[in-house]
């Protein structure tokens, strides 16, 4: 019961208290407007290079933008606590670490999902991209799975936050890494083999591929493998991120660096 309370109430409280994003002055520019301009930029670059259709860029960038809340928010679970001097207090409590850390990721997944959904709908409307009605429900599923897997990477980012002081920098670097490697704007077939091989093990890659096929008229059954792969990758990152968090926590305690990174 206590674990459930930590998971749900603790996660929500942490989200509300730490992220400082719940003011419309930050939320609207960062989560609703910025992704639209990212979509427009790459759609226009795509038109310049005659590489892919607008739909390719709308879907790729809309799903990829979930990485902003997923990476930054999870990074802030450590960086924000440290900034407010509450990190040692949280980590000296006997609370189970699993509900403590995983609980904080649930609101983040929801946040990432909403950002992707909004960008997908408005980006499509802006550029006149048509998505079949039958693809809407499967796309919702894919967006949710992608936000989940991205949050798994966010957990790893949070763990890095126990060793690196500026989590905004690590979040930005990971965001750029995903932008280059995951086939968001450049088809995997056009990237060098080593890059597309790395992409296979990253969140987003399979989710974006599945979403593109769905928007192209494919059924959910046809992309089930891709969705399953995205889910599996997400689970691996969640487990890996949690293990890394525990390891870094133990190391930080041993070194006495919880407050200074």
């Amino acid at each position, binding site marked *: 019961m206590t674990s459930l309370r930590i998971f749900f109430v603790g996660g929500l409280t942490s989200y509300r208290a730490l992220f400082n994003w719940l003011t419309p002055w930050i939320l609207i520019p*960062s989560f609703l407007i910025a992704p639209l301009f990212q979509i427009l*930029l790459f759609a*226009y*670059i795509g038109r*310049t*290079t005659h590489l892919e259709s607008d739909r390719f860029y709308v879907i790729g960038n809309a799903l990829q933008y979930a990485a902003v809340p997923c990476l930054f928010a999870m990074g802030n679970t450590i960086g924000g606590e440290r900034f407010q001097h509450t990190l040692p207090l949280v980590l000296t409590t006997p609370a189970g670490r699993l509900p403590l850390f995983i609980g904080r990721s649930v609101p983040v997944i929801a946040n990432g999902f909403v950002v992707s959904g909004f960008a997908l709908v408005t980006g499509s409307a802006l550029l006149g991209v048509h998505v079949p009605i039958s693809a809407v429900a499967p796309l919702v599923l894919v967006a949710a799975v992608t936000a989940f897997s991205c949050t798994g990477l966010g957990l790893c980012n949070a763990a890095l936050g126990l060793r690196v*002081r500026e989590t905004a920098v690590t979040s930005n670097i990971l965001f750029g890494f995903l932008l280059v490697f995951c086939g968001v704007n*450049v088809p995997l077939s056009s*990237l060098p083999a080593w890059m597309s091989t790395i992409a296979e093990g990253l969140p987003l890659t399979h989710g974006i591929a599945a979403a593109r096929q769905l928007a192209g008229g494919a059924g959910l059954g046809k992309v089930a493998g891709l969705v399953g792969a995205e889910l599996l990758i997400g689970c691996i990152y969640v487990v890996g991120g949690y293990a890394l968090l525990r390891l870094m926590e133990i190391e930080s305690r041993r070194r006495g660096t919880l407050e200074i990174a």
Partner: protein
Amino acid sequence: MHVARLIAITWWFQLKQSTKAGIFVFTAIIEPLIFATLAYYLFKAGKQPGTLLYAALSAGLMGIWSATLFGAGGAINYQRWQGVLEPLIAAPPPYLLVLFPQTLAASTIGVYSLTSTLLWGRAVFGIPLHFVHPVAFLLAVAVTIVALGVLGLVLGSSFILYREANALSNMLEFPVWIVTGAIVPLSLLPGWVHYLSWGLAPTWGYRAIRAGALGGNPWPGIGWALALAAVYLLIGEAILRVFERRAREKATLSLV
């Protein structure tokens, strides 16, 4: 003489301080390299290898804007956080002479972006760096940096009333890349966007830099960038005066 010394020392101090901050190193070097890599593969996959120098250059130009935006847009907020905004405004020199070198330092950081993307393109992708008008290219870069520094002054002054300047900076990064033609030709954009583009000094600066590097006449771009910089200076001075007075009256200068 005192004014020149104040500007030079503040510029140099801010430049050194910025290069120590991780987020500026990211904005000025790592992010442009990410976009240079993306631009390279986008243009290469689009079967337009002749435009690879264009891609490397464009990523650098995007970096110059990002450096200006985050450095200049947040300049006043950084002073707030450090608790030095009130003493700086109360000091005898006009605040304009303190803020301008800071925003100029922010745009100067953009030189790192341009240099890093060109060297990255050369070293990693083997893009030949042959500049058609090397002297005009360097002059165009210098003028663009100054023009962006003055534009940064307008931005920084405007953000004095907006405490969440960083969020606004995040939002403005991509639109200005699009509108100024940093990587996308303006001819592809809707007609009404062109009017916005013409009023932005980076549009002309970028045009001059491209003409200096890839061929064409860089001088009209340099002239327009300088003229717009002069207009921005007048606007920035006026905005700063009004907003500074308002913040003093409401006693909100140091409120974060």
